[in-house]
């Protein structure tokens, strides 16, 4: 069995997992929207750049991508500490997936509404803020939350550059106590609870939005 002090130590690892995941989500969701908007622009270079970025990053394993950022960027003259490198790698990764989600919502947006807004004399950016965005974020919510769960499950990748997250902490405890089963099982339970909590929270939010707006 795990001692209380060990359990607390494990929870510190969980705190790191929550921190890097939350930071990556907080930065990655808006960055994804920017990437998606870049793809709706007329400028072909911008559109192409965003599409290539999305395709490249979505095909890259998170571990490999994290090492590319942490070990590879210093060779180009950009040095990063492990923690910022971890957050940047996770952010750039999740942003590529979020961009696809945002893009699908933007493509599905009824054209008539946008044309009506422009006809009323709104500028493009006002129409986006007032008409488009309030609707597409609700439509994107389930898919964005799904991507958040995938990000949390991919977050142990940061262990490879020395960030002590939940998985790496469990591994350290296993190595020092010579009893690998309890910390790994405990870590699995913590991941399960965290994901269940996130999904349940999202469902509650979706339900209240549906009650308020009729649809998502």
């Amino acid at each position, binding site marked *: 069995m795990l001692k209380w002090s060990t359990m607390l130590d494990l929870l510190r690892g969980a705190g790191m997992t929550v921190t890097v995941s939350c930071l990556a989500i907080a930065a990655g969701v808006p960055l994804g929207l920017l990437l998606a908007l870049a793809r709706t622009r007329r400028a072909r270079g911008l559109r192409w750049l965003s599409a290539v970025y999305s*395709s*490249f990053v979505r*095909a*890259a*394993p*998170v*571990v*490999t*991508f994290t*090492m*590319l950022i942490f*070990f*590879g*960027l*210093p*060779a*180009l*003259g950009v040095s990063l500490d492990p923690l910022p490198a971890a957050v940047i790698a996770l952010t750039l990764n999740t942003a590529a997936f979020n961009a696809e989600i945002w893009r699908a919502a933007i493509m599905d947006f009824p054209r008539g509404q946008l044309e009506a807004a422009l006809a009323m004399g709104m500028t493009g950016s006002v129409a986006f803020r007032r008409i488009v965005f309030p609707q597409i974020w609700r439509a994107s919510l389930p898919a964005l939350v799904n991507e958040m769960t995938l990000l*949390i*499950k*991919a*977050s*142990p*990748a940061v*262990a*490879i550059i020395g960030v002590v997250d939940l*998985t790496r902490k*469990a*591994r350290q405890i*296993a190595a020092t106590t010579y*009893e*690998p*089963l309890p910390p*790994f*099982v405990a*870590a*699995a339970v913590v*991941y*399960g609870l965290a*994901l*269940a909590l996130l999904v349940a929270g999202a469902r509650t939010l979706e339900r209240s939005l549906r009650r308020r707006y009729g649809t998502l």
Partner: protein
Amino acid sequence: MTLRLDVIWKEWLQFALGLGNTVWLCAVSMLLSLLLGVLFVVPLMSRRRAVRAVARTAVDSGRCIPFLLLTYLVYYALPSLGLSLDKWTAALITLVIYNTAYMAEILRAAWVHLPPGQTEAGRAFGYTGIRLFRRIILPQVLIAVGPVVGNQLIQLIKDSAFLSIITLPELTYAANSVQSFYFVPFESFLVATLLYWGLCGAVEYLVQRGERLAAMVRRGHGH
């Protein structure tokens, strides 16, 4: 700063071997978990609620565990229960367990969305139980899941990069050993990522070809 791609070129064999290991590990475990998923989907769709609940709990907990944590469980924790595995067996077992949870869920979703007419017609012709499943339901489910299995295979290929942490010589491990020997981290990981990109692109292409074939079979023009 110039890219030292000549170093990568000199070590192309390491990359090729790593890529080869990634490909066969993922292909074999995808086939195995497709088989296991077929076995697992039966209790998931059982009419008995208790059976369904047990299967659902197993599948859901499998889908909650990060791949790296499952790798650690299999590779470091199973020996303490008296089951010691070499890293290749551990890697294969981890890939199969992890992927089976997703495959079972994918097969279940396809089964639920099957048009009920065919199953009812099968019943009317006297097919029941295992024969109904094998002859009527399963072939349709397998044709329907093609693209989703392709996406899952891409996910599996990307998760398999975690196996480099238990020093299994797959693609990411190869990239890491080349970069640490010659100190070419950027080039090395960039090339590895490009290879993953190509691999995922190849999977997508094969899925598209398969889809065209399936559409032809469905229209009755196939062989």
